[in-house]
């Protein structure tokens, strides 16, 4: 008994030290905030101590800001390191998709009035005249810079936002934040468990009605969607959207939306456009074994291709 008394004291001191350590440790909690970049609302939810939040917000703003600055229409330094890096990613998807994804559709975007919002249906001869300006093979790479032939115009809209999300997520994770999501207008990356300690529930918008088509359950993944309902105009009951088939110069037909899930949001972003445009999306996704997609065809039919992820249909027949 005499020898046990000091043990008890020691235990008490240890317990007190432990309690002090726990109480001194910054308390982590969920923080949500909204930013406006890329002409859209960006939702962020992170699990971290309040003291870390300003650093996280700054890191996201820096990542989004540098992407927005470099890849907005008309503001391109074609020798910038980030521009060249993203060009390489875009080129890789362009090749893997047999040209279905192409960042040189800028002149088509202009021709159809999507850049000015003065929407119009160009005549066939106008489309024919612009097609020679489309095609990534036309971009030259000289002395560490991209060189565009006269008239060729880049549109990074199909990949830059996703890449901004990747850069922002990397920056936030490097701060030691282990749970959260960053969603820039539908292009998102989520990591760690959600507030219910489950995988994140990502709702896929129904392309024709209010509400969701379904919910995918993912974590440590990027998600991006391309749809004919995001930017479009209607003439004589027909819908003309902004996802152009680089081969024809007309909006791609046959699908309402494509959602891609995979490790990199930038690739999800680019692949969602490529699969939307392609008539054989399965062939493209086979080149990306870590990626899967949910396609909604023009009749409302839903199909999954590539790697499968848990998907709960909400509006199913």
């Amino acid at each position, binding site marked *: 008994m005499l020898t046990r008394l000091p043990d008890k004291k020691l235990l008490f001191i240890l317990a007190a030290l432990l309690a002090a350590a726990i109480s001194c440790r910054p308390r982590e909690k969920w923080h949500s*905030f*909204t*930013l*406006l970049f890329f*002409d*859209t*609302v960006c*939702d962020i*939810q992170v699990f971290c101590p309040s003291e870390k939040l300003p650093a996280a917000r700054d890191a996201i703003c820096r990542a989004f800001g540098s992407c927005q600055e470099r890849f907005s229409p008309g503001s391109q330094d074609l020798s910038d390191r980030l521009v060249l890096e993203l060009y390489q990613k875009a080129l890789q998807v362009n090749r893997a998709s047999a040209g279905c994804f192409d960042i040189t559709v800028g002149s088509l975007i202009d021709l159809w009035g999507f850049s000015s*919002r003065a929407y119009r249906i160009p005549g066939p001869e106008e489309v024919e005249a612009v097609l020679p300006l489309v095609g990534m093979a036309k971009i030259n790479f000289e002395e560490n810079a991209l060189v565009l032939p006269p008239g060729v115009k880049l549109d990074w809209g199909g990949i830059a936002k996703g890449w901004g999300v990747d850069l922002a997520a990397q920056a936030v994770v490097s701060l030691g934040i282990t749970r959260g*999501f960053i*969603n820039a207008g*539908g*292009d*998102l990356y*989520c990591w760690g468990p*959600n*507030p219910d300690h489950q995988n*994140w*529930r*990502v*709702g*896929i*918008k*129904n*392309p024709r009605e*209010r*509400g*969701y*088509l379904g*919910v995918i359950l993912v974590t440590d993944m990027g*998600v*991006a*969607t391309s*749809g004919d309902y*995001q930017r479009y105009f209607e003439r004589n009951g027909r819908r003309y959207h902004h996802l152009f088939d680089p081969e024809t110069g007309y909006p791609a037909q046959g699908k309402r*939306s494509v*959602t891609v899930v995979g490790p990199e949001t930038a690739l999800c972003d680019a692949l969602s456009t490529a699969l939307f445009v392609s008539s054989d999306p399965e062939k493209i996704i086979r080149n990306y074994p870590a990626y899967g997609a949910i396609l909604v065809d023009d009749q409302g039919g839903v199909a999954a291709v590539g790697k499968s992820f848990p998907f709960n249909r*909400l*509006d*199913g*027949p």
Partner: protein
Amino acid sequence: MNRRDFLRTLLAAGIAAPTLLEARTLRSSSALYLISDSPGDVLPPVLAEIDSRIQKAGRRFAFLNPHPNAEEINKTLSALGWKFDQRASAGGLAFSFQRLGLPSLPSFALIRSGRICDIRSQRLWQTWKKMAASGALSSCLTIASFDLPRRNQIPGKAVTVYADGKRLASLPLARDLVKPFHTRAGPVVVGVEAGRAKVLSSPCQHRVCLASPPVFLAGERIVCAPRHFLLEVEGPHLVDTVTG
């Protein structure tokens, strides 16, 4: 009787097609198929389970064709607060009756959008087992058609207004109102009418916010990017975040 047997019974009775067709003509999203000579006994527990999900515009019921147990059903539902209607109305319960050619064990199935709902996780499972255990055969099939709200559409209770990243106000959707907000970029007027919120005026260039349809479902938003202005309907979300 398991679910497969139940369907087999319907098919064997040669009535599946006409009954399904009949249910579809009602444009109802859901139907309760009930084999029982005394449907009045089974309806209370089933309705108790689905009552909270039936559209509240309902709580009225009607018979689409003569039903031998109409009086019993009428009495049971009246006791539960349902009102009889001469004609089927949207959102209510519509009963129809079919005589089974081959008497079968009492049973029921809930069918939603053409698919059988899994009831094993619900209290209805006990009711199902009790019915099947009775052993007495029945030749009376009652079909109750009704609408369930879509699972992915939950109306919100309030709309929150943000400008320049700051929360300005939370407006209840239950009360009609018009409220101006002074943002850094100019005044924006928000209106709530009949439970739906919308932007009534904004000096922004493209007027996308003004053209946006009114919002009322939890999570729905109206965004005015140039004005850094955001309306968001608050409420329980089915999802953590959204793509598309």
